[in-house]
């Protein structure tokens, strides 16, 4: 029997077997199935998609708040990267910042704070977000809570004045939008005596006051729908958040608990930003489609509850954190039924 072509460009061993020469590629000869993989999807690619989806939001923010956006988001991202490098070094783990998840956390945190927050807010917020929101659980994939929201909750409660409603307003500021209160704050303060509902168009395009990322509903929708189309975010979550907010706020409006209409609730505050970018964090949301829908319903419920009944004008952050805590339970309650039924008892 003829000998096979003995070319060996990789310099690997060639072995004679029964007159037929086979190239044995070191380390690759035996492996379990499947032998193919869809290389178009990587975790890093998904994070990159999230960043791309955030670009419309960043642009809208730049248009309204100008230089402030750059500073806040920039500080958050840089601190997040430094913090993750530092904490993983302390734990003896390889530096994971190339997976871009810290960048995503930084951008989301940066977009959820007011323009006027002093430098220590983004810095402390990011360090806590990465440190207590992620590293302490073991890094990416192991955290229970959305890291950006952990950071934001921490600074919100620790620096109430810098993050309170007053921090958003600066009369006579160069940036036009910040001379007035945020729509939700105005509505809360004027509760019961609201003479005029906020105009919807500015809410939709974002030419009003608010935290850096929440102002433009349009930008959130564009970026968010891109993410769903790319399958880097599960569509069930924004769909159920939006759908449930319509139901809950519609009910609240009908029975007079709130004067703002459904559309107002949809377009104000961080609702759309939260629905598409915060709630969809895969690590802290449920695994099954049914679970994701319940997750979205729960978030909407708490958002409307907090907006209507509590002293806070805005509730997305707390709603997400509360639902993050219930994800393990939701997962357990929504284990999908296998095709063909559960495994029989005696197996």
């Amino acid at each position, binding site marked *: *029997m*003829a000998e*096979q*072509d003995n*070319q060996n*460009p990789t310099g690997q061993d060639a072995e004679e*077997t*029964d007159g*037929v020469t*086979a*190239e044995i*590629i070191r380390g*690759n*000869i*035996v*492996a*379990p*199935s*499947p*032998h*193919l*993989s*869809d*290389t178009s*999807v*990587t*975790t890093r*690619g*998904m994070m990159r998609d999230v960043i791309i989806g955030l670009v419309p939001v960043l642009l809208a923010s730049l248009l309204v708040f100008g230089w402030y956006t750059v500073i806040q988001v920039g500080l958050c991202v840089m601190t997040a990267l430094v913090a993750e490098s530092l904490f993983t070094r302390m734990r003896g783990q390889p530096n994971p910042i190339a*997976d871009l*998840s810290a960048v995503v956390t930084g951008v989301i945190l940066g977009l959820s704070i007011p323009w006027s927050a002093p430098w220590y807010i983004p810095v402390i917020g990011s360090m806590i977000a990465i440190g207590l929101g992620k590293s302490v659980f073991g*890094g*990416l*994939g*192991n955290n229970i809570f959305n890291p950006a929201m952990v950071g934001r909750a921490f600074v919100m409660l620790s620096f109430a004045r810098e993050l309170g409603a007053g921090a958003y307003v600066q009369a006579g500021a160069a940036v036009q939008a910040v001379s007035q209160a945020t729509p939700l704050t105005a509505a809360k303060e004027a509760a019961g005596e609201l003479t005029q509902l906020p105009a919807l168009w500015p809410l939709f395009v974002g030419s009003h006051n608010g935290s850096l990322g929440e102002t433009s509903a349009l930008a959130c929708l564009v970026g968010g729908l891109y993410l769903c189309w790319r*399958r880097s975010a*599960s569509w069930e979550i924004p769909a159920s958040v939006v759908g449930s907010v319509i139901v809950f706020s519609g009910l609240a409006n009908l029975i007079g608990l709130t004067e703002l209409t459904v559309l107002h609730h949809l377009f104000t505050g961080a609702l759309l930003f939260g629905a598409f970018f915060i709630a969809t964090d*895969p*690590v802290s*949301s449920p*695994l*099954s*489609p049914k679970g*994701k829908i319940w997750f979205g319903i729960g978030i909407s419920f708490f958002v409307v509850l907090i907006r209507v009944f509590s002293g806070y004008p805005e509730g997305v952050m707390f709603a997400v954190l509360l639902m993050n805590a219930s994800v393990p339970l939701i*997962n*357990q309650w929504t*284990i*999908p*039924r*296998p*095709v*063909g*039924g*559960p*495994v*029989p008892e005696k*197996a």
Partner: protein
Amino acid sequence: MSTATEGKATFARGVHPPEEKQLAEAMPIEVFPTPAEVLIPLLQHLGSPCEPVVENKQEVKLGDRIGEATGFISSPVHASIDGKVAKEKKATLPNGRHVRVIPIKAAAEQSLEGRALYDDIFGGEWPTGDLERFAPEEISKAALEAGIVGLGGAAFPSHVKLQRNEETPIEYLLINGCECEPYLTADYRIMLEAPGAIVTGALLARHATGAREVIIGIEDNKPQAVAALEAAAEGTGIQVRTLKTKYPQGAERQLSTALVGREVPTLGLPLHVGVVVHNVGTIAAVARAVLRGSPLTHRVVTVTGAGIREPKNLLVPIGTSYGELIEYCGGMTDDAARVVAGGPMMGFTAGSLEAPITKGTSGVTVLTRDDVRRAAETTCVRCGRCVDACPLHLVPTKIALAARAGNEEVARRYHLQACVECGCCAYVCPASIPLVQLIRVGKIMLSKS
């Protein structure tokens, strides 16, 4: 005769790996020249191994029985060439099993080779009438005597599935022409070149099982095969149904759902819902066994992949070595990296090219370094893509990671044992986690407790 079936011609979830059929689909079945030696494994089917009935130095002819079936779930083996038996030895098959094999050294003159062999297996008349003259027991016995097992890959003894069932009568006989694994084209060529044999076999099987309806399911990436089978089945009452091309449409659970809307119970058989599934190649072999009395000694093997220089569909004697097939097809390319027995989604790697082809070997897929390249494993971020891909609606990340952590309770709660290891989850995982391999380990863990 009912023409409407309850299936929706597809199933939920699954994945779309690149089909890569173009490498070999246009290659007509070529008869592989008789090798100098074959190794006939005594276990090449699901069930108990055969006992040899020949001795060292005994002369055998093509088709002589050399291994006897033992037990109900078993199947005899036959000589695939004329020659002389050599001393029994052992060989390691790609599935890792170390089995007894009977070597046969080829005689100088072979009674049946080349075109004559092809015609004996696929050519000639394949009648569609007067097949009821064979009693159902005769049909099943002929399949048993001929050593016919599932040629789609599972190698389950076919005679068991060619009988009537008293407890759960068989309503639907499904003939699997999907060949959903990428690269493989053996079943496709059989459908094009011998559709008559498939139809005859299906009619015999319908009579043997008492099935009410027979449906041949073919993926829509094989329109010529659909046309060939529709023409051959004209007037017989056999339906040909086109299914959406998706992996793993050819798996019996997904086939049953897509064609007749019946869900096969977890850990159960299609029989439990009145369904029986046979591969097109198997059913053609049944026709040959019943009408011509010929045992299963050869099978069509697709030698394909970007790592093989000349892909072909070969009619090969059972027991030929992988190495010889690869050499006949021009040898491996320089960037060949892995030889897979079967298709790339569920096939086993062939660790040794001396291993013999068995009845269940549908293909030899030679993959290149680029094909098999995987990124390093990273953490699961619970993105849910595996959940979206699993055709059995399991949660692969949960069961795989529970297996890794040795957590039996979570593994059971998430139905780990229902997994059929199709590979959809690992295929899509962005973190390159070896989900299927972890689940395999998990099955062992659960079976020990």
